[in-house]
């Protein structure tokens, strides 16, 4: 078991095992050069995780299990993506959505429901799925407009 070390811009030096790495063979859309990521817990008890690239020190996405905000979110995975991920009904998987927060405006946090990240836990494979269904927004607002600002 080898412990790998990697210096990140946000978290300083991190260490991880090979088995912790999730490989996105096509990257995350718009970031084709970063293929390998590790998941980092944001804070104790927080629903958020960071998906930190271990190819590019400055690249990390904040992600959250969509079920935390939307218990009914369970889109059907396109066949092509299931094939690429080598996922079938019995495969253990994780689903995350990428979070966007405009600078200084946590109340305007959005989730990208149209491009969820699906991870095949058994094989450490990940993929950003593109959902064509217009019912899944690229910018799904989490907190109602005019709602009180959440604690930052």
């Amino acid at each position: 078991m080898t412990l790998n070390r990697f210096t990140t811009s946000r978290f300083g030096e991190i260490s991880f095992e090979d088995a912790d790495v999730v490989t996105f063979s096509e990257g995350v859309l718009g970031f084709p050069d970063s293929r390998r990521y590790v998941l980092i817990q944001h804070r104790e008890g927080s629903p958020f995780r960071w998906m930190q690239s271990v190819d590019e020190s400055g690249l990390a996405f904040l992600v959250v299990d969509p079920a935390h905000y939307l218990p009914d979110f369970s889109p059907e995975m396109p066949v092509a993506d299931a094939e690429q991920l080598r996922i079938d009904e019995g495969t253990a998987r994780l689903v995350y959505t990428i979070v966007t927060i405009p600078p200084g405006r946590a109340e305007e946090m959005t989730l990208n429901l149209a491009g969820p990240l699906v991870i095949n836990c058994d094989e450490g494979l990940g993929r950003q799925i593109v959902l064509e269904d217009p019912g899944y927004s690229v910018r799904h607002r989490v907190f109602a407009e005019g709602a009180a600002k959440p604690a930052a």
Partner: protein
Amino acid sequence: MLVLTRKVDQSIVIVQDGVVIEVHVLDVRGEQVRLGVKAPKSTPVHREEIFRQIQASNQAASAINPDDIPE
């Protein structure tokens, strides 16, 4: 960009690494063109708009400030 002129019922073929993808022009009505894509089922095919929207959203998400994250 390569530009090709096709008529209804004609197609183009894209070949990469031994994978063959056919794009057929099925129907043209005014400004609407119906295309049929024949590709291996492991090849995702998307409308360009949603693809670009997700790319743009990913770009915005990658610049997130950790201080802005709610509990």
